[in-house]
């Protein structure tokens, strides 16, 4: 079973990298651009057939290591 995890900085945490990317795209003429938040992406494959159990395990991975919950949010999606 395969999952994707995206980790991004929380809304109230400044994301200077995202801001720079946003400014650069705006300089390239993408002027309807509203905002950009930069993050990290993981693809995780598990030896597990039960989706609930698998999701729980991935959640646990996010909480224990992949995301720092003080500054980051994560989102798990089955792929």
């Amino acid at each position, binding site marked *: 079973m395969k999952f994707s995890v995206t980790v991004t*900085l929380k809304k109230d945490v400044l994301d200077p990298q995202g801001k720079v990317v946003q400014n650069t795209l705006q300089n390239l003429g993408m002027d309807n651009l509203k905002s950009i938040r930069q993050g990290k992406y993981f693809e995780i494959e598990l030896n597990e057939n039960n989706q609930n159990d698998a999701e729980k395990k991935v959640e646990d991975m996010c909480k224990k290591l992949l995301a720092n919950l*003080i500054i980051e949010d994560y989102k798990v999606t089955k792929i």
Partner: protein
Amino acid sequence: MKSSVIVFPGSNCDRDIAVALEKMQFKNQMVWHKETKLPKSDLIVVPGGFSYGDYLRSGAIAGKSLIINEVVKAANDGCLILGICNGFQILTETGLLKGALLRNENLKFINKDVNIKVINNTTKFTKKYKKNQILKINIAHNEGNFFTDPSHLQELNKENLIAFKYCDENGEISKKSNPNGSMENIAGIYNLKKNILGMMPHPERMVDELISNKDGINLFSSLIN
């Protein structure tokens, strides 16, 4: 007094801190991160560097290493813990210190001597300094932008847990004297019991007039007595 310096792959300030500690008559031991037992220590130092190449987040992987469980146990038993630079990042990743170190606001690696002010000089780490004393200490980091939630920030102020703040040479604490975007110019903090200090500046680089100045020496002489 006995000290231990934890060494991770990618630590690069471990020998500097060992030299500083030995200069101050600490009996120091280096402890590799794969060890599962800590030698008996009065002080444990988590040194600066780029543990595990800063993979994932600075300090994240080192914060889950084998020896860290022992450091957490020792900290809970009241042992003195000092985390410098990457060591500070590791201590926040373990949860021994609250908050996090974000990427510098200007997205640049900053390596320069900056002024910091001693905010709390009543702890075992800083008792040899005067209150509001201005020190010139080197910083060298990419993620030193201290961030925490509003309730912790309130606790830091209320319980006098801010060790150092960035300031200018006259001691003024302002946005202009903030090198990395840290909340309230914070350069170092204590835990509630004040036996753990995490700081971004490098006091171990300031113990010899020949190469810099001696502004860092009182931190170690505070600890030895």
